[in-house]
């Protein structure tokens, strides 16, 4: 009996110890998820690439590590939502802060105002080629805040329009002679295609489409960088245009899957991001990629919504100068070795690739290979862009599909974003 009791006690204590140990932070854990140790010769690199592009970034990191750098890079890919949730926690706690991180360009201001970012200014002095002239301007400029550099761009990804060449040839043969498809041309082609049960335009991810249209209409998200300026005719006109296209029956319908219909040859124009390029390859027809739908066929007025993945270093007092140099070595290597990233369908931000024939043959390179096209790329760098995105993602389709009023869209968005902005106490 005593033996049984003794065994029970041992088991219970064992269970408790195991649980407590599991909740603790072993040194192995810290190595696997992040690092705050200045002495470690490993650069822990967090990024949100968990889709097919995850294998491309891993291939790049592996390739870099094969060069036997002093500091090897440890690739840690995690879901975007999880990563952005973890960042404030680890930075606040000071433990397991990644040495290097990819974030979206729109988040830089937010993190900088919260005093979370380490500036690159000192680190850049020994790397003269990491400079504005060697990167796409829009992706480079966004990391420059208050005279300091807080990020180095990896890419600039853009939302354009995929099109079915055969259908375009049939219904609007000359529309793409200038490489721009206008809404008027789409409408005209759609009216002809309706009788053949072909939709001229897919209703897809509305945020980049509406933001692009909003700027074409002369709108801006904020005039002072803080308070939103969304309730105006430019926003109403933008959403009203799509509602009108939907009502006239030339777009895909509510509930239809525009991607499946496009690859099935039932949709002429499919507005989507360049990151969808490898998926669109499923289509069994000749397809092309061009600018996002525009109001005007004047390229100087064109707006192509873009975002950018940016390398940042979160503040970490344990990061040694040697490790920072190791990080810079990696960024310099990425600047001249980004073809693998282009294979993921992306446009690397480095202009070094413009000397690479393989890259120039990729369809998405059209946004980069001409300075006039680079001018069309627009990152909406409003500090509270996230609130705008949330509203558009939740409500734009309801308006287009007739479940909410066009006239409510802009004022409601203005109110929601303004109320949320009012709650922010960071450096306004």
């Amino acid at each position: 009996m005593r033996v049984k009791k003794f065994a029970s006690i041992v088991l219970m204590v064992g269970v408790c110890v195991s649980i407590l140990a599991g909740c603790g932070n072993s040194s192995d854990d810290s190595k696997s998820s992040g690092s705050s140790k200045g002495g470690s010769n490993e650069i822990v690199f967090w990024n949100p690439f968990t889709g097919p592009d995850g294998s491309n970034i891993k291939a790049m990191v592996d390739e870099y590590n094969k060069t036997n750098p002093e500091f090897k890079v440890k690739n840690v890919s995690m879901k975007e939502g999880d990563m952005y949730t973890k960042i404030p926690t680890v930075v606040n706690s000071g433990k397991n802060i990644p040495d290097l991180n990819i974030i979206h360009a729109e988040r830089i201001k937010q993190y900088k105002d919260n005093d979370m970012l380490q500036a690159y200014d000192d680190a850049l002095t020994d790397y003269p080629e990491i400079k504005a002239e060697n990167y796409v301007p829009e992706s480079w400029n966004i990391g420059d805040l208050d005279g300091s550099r807080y990020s180095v761009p990896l890419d600039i990804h853009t939302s354009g329009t995929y099109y079915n060449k055969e259908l375009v040839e049939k219904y609007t043969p000359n529309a793409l002679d200038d490489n721009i498809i206008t809404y008027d041309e789409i409408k005209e082609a759609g009216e002809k295609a309706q009788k053949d049960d072909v939709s001229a335009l897919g209703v897809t991810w509305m945020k980049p489409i509406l933001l692009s249209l909003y700027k074409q209409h002369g709108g801006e998200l904020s005039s002072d960088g803080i308070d939103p300026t969304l309730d105006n005719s430019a926003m109403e006109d933008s959403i009203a245009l799509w509602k009108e296209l939907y009502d006239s029956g030339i777009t895909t319908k509510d509930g239809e899957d525009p991607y499946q219909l496009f690859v099935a040859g039932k949709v002429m124009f499919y507005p989507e991001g360049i990151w969808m390029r490898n998926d669109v390859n499923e289509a069994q027809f000749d397809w092309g990629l061009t600018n996002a739908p525009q109001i005007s066929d004047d390229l100087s007025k064109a707006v192509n919504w873009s975002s950018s993945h940016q390398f940042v270093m979160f503040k970490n007092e344990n990061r040694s100068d040697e490790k920072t140099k190791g990080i810079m070595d990696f960024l310099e290597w990425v600047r001249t070795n980004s073809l693998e990233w282009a294979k993921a369908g992306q446009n690397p931000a480095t202009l070094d690739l413009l000397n690479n024939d393989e890259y120039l043959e990729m369809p998405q390179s059209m946004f980069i290979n001409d300075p006039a096209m680079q001018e069309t790329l627009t990152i909406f760098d409003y500090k509270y862009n996230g609130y705008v995105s949330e509203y558009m993602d939740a409500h734009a389709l309801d308006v287009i599909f007739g479940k909410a009023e066009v006239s409510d869209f802009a004022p409601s968005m203005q109110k929601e974003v303004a109320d949320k902005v009012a709650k922010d106490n960071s450096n306004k």
Partner: protein
Amino acid sequence: MSLSQKKKKGNQAQSKVFPWLFIAPHLVIFSIFFLIPVVFGIYISFTDWDLVSSPNFVGLANYQEIFTNQDSIFYTQLRTGLTNTFKFVIFVVPFCIMVPLLIAVALNTKPKLGKFFQSLFYMPSLFAISAVVIIWTLMFNVTYGPVNKLLGTSIPLTSTMPYAWVTLVVVTIWWTIGGNMIIYQAALNGIPQDYYEAADIDGASSLQKFFKITLPSIKGQILYTLVVTTIAQFNVYGQPLMLTGGGPSDGTRVLLMYIQQNAFGSGQSIAGIASAMAIVLGICIMIVSAIQFKFLRTKN
């Protein structure tokens, strides 16, 4: 002190320590994953924390905003989210109790292929919600999905009212049948056959046996499943997030979706307000559970 007194004292000490040892693992887990987060959550609800800077104590300001400031978007969010959450619970819970009960009663008659059907009904409970919603999103696809084909309609069911609610209810029932069904099956197996034999002799009908013997015999399990299911459904999140996206026009947007977006959305975190909303939801769950206990026990 005699040997027997020493032994007695030793046994008393052991009897005091032993229960604690047995509940220790649960206490540790309960404290780490429930007690500490709840206390911290309550504290955060009285601050203007944004997950980054230090939390500033703002007293009842967050509660004042979500309860009384009618001009605030957060006031609207609380009302919309809470209303939709209650709607979901009211629509779903009765089915989540009745459907598994009827299936358990049917399986209790030991039909042919009973084990097969038991596995079939239980299997969805093993799936992650993301897998469940992906399956049903394909089922409800207007162009290629079988549901619209069967019904002969081109209405997008997941984005049109009131069908959006119907799809949420159907998916949730399909997903959750198994857990309650197993509990009811175990309870039904424990009912003595003598009761049914006596009822047969007295000429009772099947319905009379169900209402007079079966239901009263498993009332404890029904109460348990009712409370647990209600609490679980108050925490609904995955189904409306992935199936209806909270639409159309926020018609199925539940409170947890607002809480998640405010605390961990794409913009700067508004964790103070989100925490206050979460506390309100927690209080609602406690009140409803208490009423259920009170009502069912009083009736008993």
